[in-house]
Structures are given as structure tokens and as C-alpha cells.
């Protein structure tokens, strides 16, 4: 066996340029496959990380077009939804206001989330100092506020200093009960972030409506079901379901997944076409090799090589081309994925199973497309083969 492998190597290295060009098809195909898989996997991981922070099993319920239509949702609707939907884990009413937080002569433009105590279970809120809003705060419409670390640093000497002190929002005094660790506000005009009880908002602003109600489910598969239920419950109360809309990340997730999948599939099919083309390249070259080496095959037969041994010889050559094409493909795929990372920031994820499978696939392509030429070689009549052409 070792000698056969040796001879196969000998025959391949005898024409290095030809061998290289034959391998190129496999290199491109496997390279595309490896990079698509690893970049795709990296993208999925990245996306999931981002979505997880946002809350994957969360449903937003709001009126009409989000924040464009005057909201009709009331605080009591949150209680209604909480009581009517058994699959709802947390029901959180929220309203967002951009206001100035004042202390002394300082005033800072802040995004104010008017919500209840359940928010901390849903969002990624880290209270490192003091506490978050409590059930009592909400129940008794207490004038308390949770501010972020930046605010604490700007308005006070720091988070520990801030706890227990008072700040002013629209002329009303609020007691700081907690400081959130390092929160940065995104997609908002305001630089800072603070939380007050939604009930306090209702009484202070004199508003009877809230922007949105969010519901979470323990089972992400029930997102659509719970969404429909929420619309139905509100529809029954208001007489129409047309007014309300829901939003959840399952749609985002599946759309993003779908786009990512589509993208992967397109490139994957290109990769497969490249691999088949590469395989046909192998077949083509092996057929040329067989006719070039007719006399050698004749000699091998005259010396008593069996059909199996000749077949093995040619399959080994095709297989070796496949192996090296596969190794080259994996290397170039990994390199390409890192180059892509450099430009896009998507860290590729290389799974061993994908790498092993690609290598096996490369060998399979080599052997599969080497089969016919090898068969042709072993079926040559020795007397015919020996005659020089």
C-alpha cells in the first residue's frame, strides 16, 4: 500500500503544474464552503448575542404605528393583559420621555423610562448601587428615580453619593434610590438614562395613556400565540383589533436568519458548482493521464498487476489530489474568513465538524470523479495497451 501511495505521489509530482491546476477547482470549492460556514456561524453568534440583550422572547404591544399614532393604551390594559394571558411571564407598561434632570444649576437631557418593577427581569439592567424600582414604588406612585452611572457622576460626586439625594424633574423632586452600572443610551437624542415608576408619571404628567406594554413568555415558540392573544384581549375591550399592533424579535430573528441562510445557500451552491467543476477537472486530467500512460498500464498488467491494483493506483492519485485540494481549500477558507473579519468585524467560528467534513468531502470528490478514469485504466486490454500509440 505504501508503495502504491509512493508511486501515486511520484506520478503527481512528475507534473506539478498540472497537479496544481487540477487541485485549484477543489481548493476554490472547499475554500468557499469553509469560509461561508464559518462566517455564517460567526454572524449567527453575533446576531444572537445582540438580540439576546434585547430580549428574544419579548413582545411589544402598542397603538397603531409605533410612537407615530397617539397611544390609547392605558395602565389598566397592562393589568388586563396580565390577568387574561396565562402564558405571559412579565407584563410591563412603559412610556418614554425625554426630559431635563435638574440639580442645583445643572440640567441634563435624559431619556426617562416610566415603567414598573418587572423591567429589571426583562432588560439587561445592572443596579450596582441602591435598588431598582419596587412594587411599592409603583403601587404608591412614589417620587423615586433610578439614574445611570453617568448622571450620578455629573450631578453628584458619584454613585454612592447620589443614593438618597434629590433631583428635579419638571419641577418635582425625586429621590434617587439606585444607580445603574454603565448604561449607555442608544437610538435616543438623550445622552443619559433614568427610570421612574409609570404610576408616578401618570400622576405627575396627568397622562392616562402609556406608550407600550411589553410581555415576555417563558417559551419563545409561543411568541406569536401570545401576540395574537394580546391583540384579541385588547380588541375585545376597545371594540376593534385594528388599533393595536405587536412586535417581537422572532420576526427579526427569522428574517435575519432567513437572509443569512439565503446568503449562505447562494454561496454554498456556488461552492458546490465549483466543487463539481473541480471534480470534473480531476476526471478530465485523470482521463488524459490514463491515455498518456496506456503503455505503463500495459506494462503493469504484463507484470501481473490485477485490475484492482491498477484501479487502486489511479484512485489513489485522484484521492491525493482531493486531499491536497481539500487542505489547500481549508487553509484558504480560514484565511479568507479572517480577511473578512478584518473588514466586517464578524468573528468567524470554525467548527471541527465542518473542517473534517470539508476534508472528507474533498477526498470524496477526488475519488468519485477518479472512479471512471480508474475503471477505464483497469479495463484496458494488456496487449492493446502495450502497443505504443
Amino acid at each position: 500500500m505504501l508503495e502504491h501511495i509512493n508511486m501515486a505521489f511520484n506520478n503527481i509530482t512528475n507534473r506539478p503544474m498540472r497537479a496544481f491546476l487540477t487541485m485549484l477547482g477543489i481548493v476554490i470549492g472547499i475554500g468557499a464552503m469553509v469560509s461561508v460556514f464559518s462566517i455564517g456561524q460567526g454572524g449567527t453568534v453575533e446576531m444572537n448575542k445582540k438580540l439576546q440583550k434585547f430580549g428574544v422572547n419579548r413582545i411589544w404591544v402598542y397603538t397603531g404605528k409605533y410612537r407615530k399614532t397617539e397611544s390609547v393604551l392605558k395602565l389598566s390594559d397592562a393589568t388586563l393583559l396580565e390577568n387574561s394571558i396565562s402564558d405571559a411571564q412579565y407584563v410591563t407598561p412603559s412610556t418614554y420621555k425625554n426630559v431635563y434632570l435638574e440639580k442645583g444649576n445643572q440640567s441634563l437631557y435624559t431619556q426617562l423610562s416610566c415603567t414598573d418593577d418587572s423591567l429589571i427581569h426583562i432588560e439587561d439592567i445592572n443596579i450596582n448601587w441602591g435598588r431598582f424600582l419596587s412594587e411599592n414604588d409603583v403601587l404608591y406612585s412614589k417620587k423615586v428615580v433610578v439614574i445611570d452611572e453617568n448622571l450620578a457622576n455629573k450631578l453628584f460626586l458619584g454613585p454612592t453619593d447620589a443614593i438618597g439625594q434629590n433631583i428635579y424633574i419638571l419641577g418635582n423632586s425625586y429621590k434617587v434610590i439606585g444607580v445603574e452600572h454603565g448604561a449607555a443610551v442608544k437610538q435616543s437624542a438623550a445622552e443619559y438614562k433614568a427610570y421612574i415608576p409609570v404610576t408616578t408619571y401618570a400622576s405627575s404628567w396627568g397622562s392616562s395613556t402609556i406608550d407600550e406594554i411589553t410581555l415576555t413568555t417563558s417559551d419563545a415558540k409561543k411568541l406569536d400565540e401570545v401576540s395574537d392573544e394580546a391583540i384579541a384581549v385588547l380588541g375585545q375591550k376597545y371594540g376593534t383589533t385594528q388599533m393595536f399592533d405587536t412586535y417581537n424579535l422572532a420576526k427579526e430573528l427569522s428574517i435575519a436568519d432567513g437572509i443569512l441562510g439565503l446568503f449562505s445557500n447562494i454561496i454554498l451552491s456556488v461552492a458546490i458548482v465549483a466543487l463539481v467543476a473541480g471534480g470534473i477537472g480531476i476526471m478530465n486530467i485523470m482521463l488524459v493521464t490514463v491515455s498518456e500512460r496506456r503503455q505503463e498500464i500495459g506494462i503493469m498488467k504484463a507484470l501481473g498487476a490485477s485490475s484492482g491494483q491498477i484501479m487502486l493506483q489511479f484512485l489513489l492519485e485522484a484521492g491525493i489530489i482531493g486531499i491536497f485540494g481539500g487542505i489547500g481549500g481549508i487553509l484558504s477558507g480560514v484565511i479568507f474568513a479572517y480577511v473578512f473579519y478584518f473588514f466586517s468585524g464578524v468573528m468567524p467560528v470554525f467548527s471541527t465538524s465542518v473542517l473534517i467534513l470539508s476534508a472528507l468531502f474533498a477526498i470524496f470528490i477526488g475519488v468519485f470523479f477518479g472512479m471512471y478514469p480508474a475503471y477505464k485504466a483497469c479495463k484496458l486490454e494488456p496487449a492493446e495497451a502495450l502497443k505504443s500509440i
Partner: protein
Amino acid sequence: MIETVDLKKTYIARNKEVYALNGINLQVDKGDFVSIMGPSGSGKSTLLSILGCLDNACQGSYYLNGIDVKRLKDRKRAQLRNSVIGFVFQSFFLMPRLSAAENIELPMLYYGLTPKERHKRAQWLLECVSLSDRANHLPSELSGGQCQRIAIARALANDPELILADEPTGNLDQEASSVVLDMFSVLNEQGKTVVLITHDGTIAKKAKRSLVIRNGIINNA
């Protein structure tokens, strides 16, 4: 050793059947040294192909050691070529990318000898043909005479009973020819059956028995 009964072989050329062999009755006993002489196109190479189990006859029978070769499967015929027959060709037919020693080892590889056994026997055969110092040379680095001696060593790799030689001196100069021919005589003395094909009468005389083939039929010389 060899017995043929009314061997016929036809080729189709320009839609016409052409007889390459037209009823060959040949008997070669064990230990014999037979030369078959004939002009080109007389069918002598075709006959050798059939005797060497490289080709099948269209009609008639060929018995090698009493076995009807026509009835053998491919694998069995390959085994016969491997261990019962040793070939020596006019243009040597050495593998161009294998060294002299590797060429000699090839039939042993197909036979299934271990690398150690192969190596040992190849060294011994190289000694027999006085080319021990050329073991690692490629055929392209050897002279014609040396190549043919390597080819003879290869023919002896699996210690066959029968040596088939097709114009073995056709590409050699006189000196190399006589070395090669002497080897056949020595091999015959050692008990090998030799069938030698040539178109040269002086070479044919080296054999114990000379036959002439003409138009696919054998006559005694």
C-alpha cells in the same frame, strides 16, 4: 509447458477480416529454448501476446501447464503473468519514474512480497545481471543494454518457469546483444523454458529449436 491447438486470431482492417494467426499448433516442453522467426507482420508478436496471456485467441485453444487459458478470469490470468511468465520486450518497457531496483521489485509488489523480501531479492537479481551499482538509477540514466538487463532481472522477479522475449536485442548494439543472448542461454541451462521471438537468423540459432512463422502459420526452420 505450452500447447496450442489450431490458434486463430483475426483483425478487422477496412471491413475485411485479416488473419494474424491462422491455425498455430505449437508445443513447447519444459526446459526447451525455442526461437520463433518471421518477418514483420507475420503474426509473431500476436502469438507472443497470446502465449503471454496478454490477449486471447479468437479460435483454438491454448494450454499453459495444462490450463485452458481462455477459460480463466482476468484475475487468474494476471496471476499467471505475475508468477509463471516473465516478459522481456524489445523496448524494455521499464517504468520511467521508478529506479532500476524498484522496477525489479514491481512484480514482487503485485505478488504480495513484503518490502524486506522484495528488497533482498532485487539486490540479488541486480547482482545476477551485474548491475548492483545501478540500483538507484532511473531507466533514462542507463544504456540500452543495461536497461534490457534490468528488464531481464525484472522478468525473473517471481522466479517464473517461462521466459517470453519479444525481439529482446532489437534495440541493442552487437556487444550488448550478445550479453543479453548469453543470459537467455544461461537461464535455459538453469531450467527455464524460453520462447524468443526474432527476425534475425543468427539470433535464432542460439535456441535449441527454431521455428519460422509466415502468414500466421508455423513451419519448422
